[in-house]
């Protein structure tokens, strides 16, 4: 890579960053501007009715970005306070959600990757298990919730189960796809070197399929983070999903928007961390 291309790349990044800032400023400006309550009476004397309302607006408005930024500052400067069941810091709520997501997700990985391996290696197992997968996969994870609540009899564990069931499929199918797609040349290398099946699995097939498996893991963590919000709205108690719904019940839209933003940021961080791991197993052919 020569000097000119690096400079070009830098300037491209810089220009993209600038453009993003401009778009953000524009959107926030529009939002802030359009949500301003009209100056009542066009600056003229207030009517009797308006006086009765104390000059307040008749319709509730979406809070402006400035109010959300103030709320974000309040919340993030003390994220872990705990003032009773319905008043916990955003950090605590996110912590609960992350714990559930990771618990369900890791259990799913522990099940999906070995089974995916099996399905990918054995056409028999693929044909035998495929009908089950095809029927179970399109089921909305929340549809499992009543059954989970009945069988498990614990809201917390049911939420984890829902995460488990929704994150299992992308990992399972991607692992199977990756394993089945390992180039036969590489398997032949293992065969001509008399590697045992176990060694072939760990030394050739796993590294060869790892990028595809990691892609499945990234899809799964994304879905798990989508589903936890809905699951927590149902089971209640703690977690970011419950927090959103609780603030809606409190008619505190500023907090609702703030928590929506936090859900997005945490989801992005989860994806980025897996993308980082994926860099270590990616190879160029």
């Amino acid at each position, binding site marked *: 890579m020569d000097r000119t291309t690096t400079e070009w790349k830098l300037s491209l990044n810089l220009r993209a960053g600038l453009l993003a800032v401009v778009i953000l400023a524009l959107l926030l400006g529009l939002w802030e501007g359009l949500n301003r309550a009209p100056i009542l009476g066009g600056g003229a004397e207030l009517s009797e009715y308006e006086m009765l309302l104390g000059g307040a607006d008749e319709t509730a408005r979406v809070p402006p970005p400035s109010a959300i930024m103030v709320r974000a500052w309040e919340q993030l400067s003390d994220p872990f306070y705990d003032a009773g069941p319905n008043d916990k810091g955003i950090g605590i709520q996110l912590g609960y959600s992350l714990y559930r997501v990771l618990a369900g997700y890791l259990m799913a990985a522990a099940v999906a990757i070995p089974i995916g391996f099996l399905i990918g290696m054995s056409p028999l197992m693929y044909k035998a298990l495929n009908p089950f997968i095809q029927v179970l996969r399109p089921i909305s994870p929340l549809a499992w919730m009543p059954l989970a609540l009945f069988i498990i009899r614990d809201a917390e564990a049911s939420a984890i189960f829902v995460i488990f069931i929704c994150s299992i499929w992308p990992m399972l199918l991607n692992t199977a796809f990756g394993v089945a797609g390992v180039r036969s040349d590489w398997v032949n290398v293992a065969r*001509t070197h*008399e590697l045992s099946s176990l060694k072939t699995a760990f030394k050739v097939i796993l590294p060869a399929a790892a990028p595809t498996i990691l892609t499945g893991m990234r899809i799964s963590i994304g879905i798990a983070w989508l589903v936890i919000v809905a699951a927590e709205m149902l089971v209640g108690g703690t977690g970011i999903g419950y927090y959103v719904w609780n603030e809606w019940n409190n008619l505190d839209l500023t907090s609702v928007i703030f928590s929506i933003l936090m859900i997005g940021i945490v989801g992005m961080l989860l994806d980025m961390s897996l993308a980082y791991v994926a860099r270590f197993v990616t190879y160029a052919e």
Partner: protein
Amino acid sequence: MSHAFVEVQQAAKRFPGATKTSPPLTVFENVSFQLQKGEFVCIIGHSGCGKSTIMNALAGLDQFSDGSMVMEGNEINGPGLERGVVFQNYSLLPWLTTLENVRFGVRARWKNWSEREVTEHSMKYLELVGLKDVVDRKPSQLSGGMRQRVSIARAFATKPKLLLLDEPFGALDALTRGVIQDELVKIWTKDQQTVFMITHDVDEAILLADRIFLMTNGPEARIAEAVEIDLPRPRNRAEIIKHPNFYTIRNYLVDFLVNRSGDLRVQEDESKGLRYPTSVNPARLNDPDENSTPQHEEKLVKFTPKEIRHG
């Protein structure tokens, strides 16, 4: 009756026909040959004659529909470390570095070696192919020629009794090919392994081989002739073309590939016999005094079941 180092007898490969009633497609049949220990044999033939199937069967990665294969009295019925393979597309593991790819083979071959022994042995072979400066690069960061050298180093480093090279230089440009051919000669001269190699390049075959098997066109191909190359060794590319017999041999081979490989296919009479390919020495074909029967045929000595140890 003692047998050769490697013997293939009456091998055939058939594929079922397109429909249940149509006859099976016979790629080749009645292929029998011997490889002597330390011999370098090249096999030449047009595409589709089944060269690669023969090679993959020797490697244990494919199976004949018919016939038997024996190496040192043991039947070949699966891949094994005593047979090393260099594939046309290199087949390096892309997530491993150059050194790790060679170590992969060495570690599989000598399981009780220490890490240091494995690395030292691998480095020795990487040095032989001139790659000791790029041992930490991944295959994707190497040129095609360098990748094939790694693949050759990996195969030779495990010291197989029989080396199978499937058109190893097919994807390389002529200049690179020449350099690696010289390296192959060097490493082969050092270890004196038995090599069986597919090639499409007549000059390459003359440079490297003790004998060249000529296959007729498929389907229903067979090995028609085994051409003996008795040019003096060590050979090198610059000197060999000056040898008086070089062009006699070369013309003979080209003539076979261009004119006779198709004609011979339709000659049914020979293909049904139980015999090894006809031995030919092109240099002596026009010299009746020295050898009155330049083309002599050997009858096949069939294996008795007792001679084949299974497993």
